[in-house]
């Protein structure tokens, strides 16, 4: 209670500096928030894509029904594989004409069906990674009656690397803003300490522990940090809404992520304040 009351008076004493600190923390966490939003939406998109990740093995026309049935069985017993569906030449043509209606006339006129039969292999959910997809495709290609095994590797890889780039950019931005924020909070807290140096000196002479003296300043840092976190949350939500309205529909961040962001901002504020006050206390005492 005392700590909270004194933290508030510290904030009132230097409102501009406190505001700057809040803005710095806000920007820091905002850049992390933008990354989180990007990463989360990429994740959502990926899991969508991953749900469709499959290896398609195109079969040679001379493959016998028997060979295919045995191979299908073997492939389905791979640990990575969920199912393998046989699509005959006729079915392939039918599906193609249905999906690509503009060509349906062409297909019906064909005398020889040009489409190969295939096995559509779906992977188990926890094996839908670029590595496993490649491994399955390699094993399937080893069958002599398999003409070619295809999978969407490049595409999946590209999304993953996009995510890494976004992460790196956010980390650099986030760290530079966080450093600036820590410096500003440090200055604000140092000013609070100086404004109260007489009181602190008296506390020290009557035997107050550093912990007791530090508490109001830590609360001040925490409050500043949380305010910055809320600002970041607002900015992130604003960006989300703006993109949502004008470009594409997005998924909003999961609750634990936003909670973690707020907690991070609060802790950042508290650590910066703790560092500043520790240094000032050392300066004020024994010499």
């Amino acid at each position, binding site marked *: 209670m*005392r700590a909270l009351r004194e933290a508030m008076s510290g904030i009132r004493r230097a409102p501009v500096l406190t505001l700057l600190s809040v803005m710095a923390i806000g920007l820091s966490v905002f850049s992390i928030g933008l990354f989180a939003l990007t990463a989360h939406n990429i994740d959502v998109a990926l899991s969508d894509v991953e749900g469709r990740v499959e290896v398609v093995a195109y079969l040679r026309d001379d493959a016998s029904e028997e060979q295919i049935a045995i191979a299908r069985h073997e492939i389905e017993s791979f640990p990575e594989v969920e199912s393998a569906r046989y699509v005959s030449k006729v079915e392939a043509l039918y599906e193609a004409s249905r999906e690509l209606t503009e060509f349906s006339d062409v297909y019906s006129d064909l005398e020889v069906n040009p489409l190969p039969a295939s096995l559509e292999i779906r992977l188990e959910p926890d094996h839908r990674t670029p590595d496993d997809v490649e491994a399955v495709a390699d094993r399937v290609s080893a069958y002599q009656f398999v003409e070619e095994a295809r999978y969407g590797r490049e595409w999946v890889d590209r999304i993953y690397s996009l995510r890494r780039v976004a992460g790196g950019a956010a980390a650099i931005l986030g760290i530079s803003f966080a450093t600036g924020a820590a410096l500003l909070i440090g200055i604000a807290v140092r000013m609070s300490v100086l404004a109260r140096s*007489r*009181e602190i*000196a*008296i*506390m*020290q*002479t*009557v*035997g*107050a*522990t*550093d912990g*007791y*003296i530090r508490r109001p300043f830590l609360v001040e840092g925490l409050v500043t940090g949380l305010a910055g976190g809320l600002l970041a949350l607002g900015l992130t939500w604003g960006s989300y809404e703006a993109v949502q309205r004008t470009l594409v529909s997005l998924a909003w961040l999961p609750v634990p992520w936003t909670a973690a962001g707020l907690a991070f901002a609060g802790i950042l504020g508290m650590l910066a304040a703790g560092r500043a006050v520790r240094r000032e206390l*050392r300066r004020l*005492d*024994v*010499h």
Partner: protein
Amino acid sequence: MVQLRSVTKSFGGSSAAVQDISFHLRKGEFAFLTGDSGAGKTTVLKLIHMLHRPTSGEVRVSRYSSSRIRRRDLPGLRRRVGYIFQDFRLLENLTAEENVAFALEVTGMPRAKIGPRVQKLLSQVGLAARAQAFPRELSGGEQQRVAVARALANEPLVLLADEPTGNLDERASAGVFGLFQKINASGTSVLMATHDAELIRRHRDVRVIELEQGRLVFDSAGETE
């Protein structure tokens, strides 16, 4: 109890503020620390309170030693050494009783215990009636008493008072001195810095330690160990 061994404190000037001082203040003892302005009295008190660290030599207070004490031990030491500043150092925005309670709150004493203890301390210094007054509403002597009550709050082994009668008229001065004698009678050692020659003359039975330009030039207890 309080022991200085060849203590020198230099602030970087041409001569040390305190130079090669040794004395021993025993448990329950009362002593004047005297000398002209600038002789080093305040510096000696702050060395004992470990607000200053000796440049050389050693200060021992109870089980604490200036050469070994760690930062986290300072609060414990400060609670065993009551310090009354020359300028009282009361918090202006707190009442007399709040100023005293403050010294108990910082030690983490439960609130329920603080109230009765503060009342007891204030009546001990004869200020029970002025508990609700702010420092600016109190006379110099009364402010001094609040400072004394605060210094006594944590039952110190020794009380250090820096020119406690310096700003007081003779009557108030005698009152404060009487209060220190009463406190001393209950077992607390007292080291009182003063350059009030008259006060010292009136109390010939009290030990006198005299400083001159940072050096100890006289100790009526005759020991300079």
